[in-house]
């Protein structure tokens, strides 16, 4: 009996102690959270989510994205289309080159919100099933890469370069491919690949 009484007393005390501790614990984070939210509302703008519809590689997408999302991040992070690469994220390397309504552009300097109703083609959209695009074949044939990181951007830019007709000479190809930097220096292979497709 006495044993159980002691046990009861102990457990009652234990209950009171722990429950108040729990109450305190439950209360503190709440007030901190409220305070944090107050501060956040005053000093940080809430993120803005926008509806976006666009076509990527022939497929329609209806999405919601943070207004800050670039086309590059939309492709890579939201849609898992990681073929398009992020090099500099500042328009200086061309790794993120895609086609927007048929024209080559930098996805890192494009807001997803401004792609409303546009047609995007990425490296994933070039091949026809298992058949590579002629430019992809040419890059393989002519060793148009080493590490391969710049390659999706190079190929997208190269396809546009041929469509634009800027392939009359090696010099012209080089000038019109100057927006795509290759850290490995595979430039000769790249220009040869383009020349072979242009013919």
């Amino acid at each position, binding site marked *: 009996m006495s044993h159980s009484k002691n046990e009861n007393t102990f457990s009652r005390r234990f209950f009171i102690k722990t429950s108040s501790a729990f109450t305190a614990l439950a209360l503190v984070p709440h007030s901190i959270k409220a305070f944090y939210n107050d501060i956040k509302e005053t000093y940080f703008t809430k993120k*803005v989510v926008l509806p976006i519809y666009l076509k990527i590689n022939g497929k329609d997408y209806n999405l919601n994205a943070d*207004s800050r999302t670039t086309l590059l991040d939309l492709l890579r992070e939201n849609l898992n289309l990681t073929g398009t690469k992020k090099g500099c994220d*500042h328009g200086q390397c061309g790794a993120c080159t895609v086609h927007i309504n048929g024209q*080559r552009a*930098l996805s890192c*300097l494009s807001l997803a*919100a*401004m792609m409303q109703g546009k047609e995007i083609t990425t490296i994933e959209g070039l091949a026809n099933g298992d058949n590579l695009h002629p430019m992809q074949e040419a890059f393989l044939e002519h060793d148009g890469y080493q590490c391969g990181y710049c390659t999706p951007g190079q190929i997208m830019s190269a396809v546009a370069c041929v469509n634009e007709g800027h392939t009359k000479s090696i010099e012209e190809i080089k000038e019109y491919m100057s927006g795509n930097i290759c850290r490995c220096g595979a430039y000769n292979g790249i220009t040869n690949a383009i020349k072979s497709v242009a013919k």
Partner: protein
Amino acid sequence: MKPFEFHRAINSDDVFKHISTTSKYIAGGTNLLDLMKKHIHEPNTIIDLNSALSNTIEQKNDGIFLGAMTTNTKVTENTIVNKNFPLVSKAILAGASPQIRNMATTSGNLLQRTRCPYFYDTNIPCNKRKSNSGCGALNGHQRMAGIVGTSQNCVAVHPSDFCVALAALDAEVFITKTDSTTEKIPFKDFHRLPENNPEKDNNLSDNAIITGVFIPNNNFGNTVSYVKIRERDSYAFALVSVAAALEIKDDKIKKVRLASGGVAHKPWRWFEAEKFLKNKKASRDNFIKAAELIVSKTKPLPNNTFKVTLLKGAVETALMQCLTNTSNG
């Protein structure tokens, strides 16, 4: 980037409905987004001008009008531009990359910010970024800095190539202000010198919009040239550039335009040299004298005296190229 509201404006009234002290316009986005990622611009609202302003090129009796939203590529592919204003295409094609020119617009190019490395580095003081904070370039790297019209507060240059051609051709900037009134600013008065308030790049009033650029007809034909010297052959901003245009009649220079990029806070016209060449023979001797006159007007900084030599050569080359371009064209 800081979160922002996004609004696609449908016309200029709609643009002005959404403006505030913390709003920013976006056109191609190639400069604005870059600066936002670096927290140099932190707008609360972004207003997309693409559906609100013209993206067409119109031939007028007295010249050509480039809508604000025409892309740089579209301008270079226009047959009238290439026939009557080849200097414009030459200058645009000397800048950026095909991808960027496909995105960049006429108005965005005029309003792009400087490429001074310290303007981009938020750890270093910069009067242009933050008034009265100091100037990192005054005692720093000066390869990208000016050699004429600089001040103790800022030695940065305007980075555009397109604008050098527009300055040379006496273009006009068409503007609509927030009270819906319009104005035209001659190109030479659009951008400004840094003086005591380098945070202001130009004379556009707050939240006014550029609706387009007008270029008056000229008789230069193909006797024009754009020479750009940079750290690599392509895809780099100018160290110095020269736009030259000549109208030659009876073996004499009837009209001449000389402008430079990479040398000043604004696209710079060399009026004295133009005056010197007028009515003279289009000869290498005279071109060299003009180049000497031009460099005599420069005041380089301690670490960019080399730009004076580059400029001298570029002026002579550009004028000589005008002559070869005529015969080729």
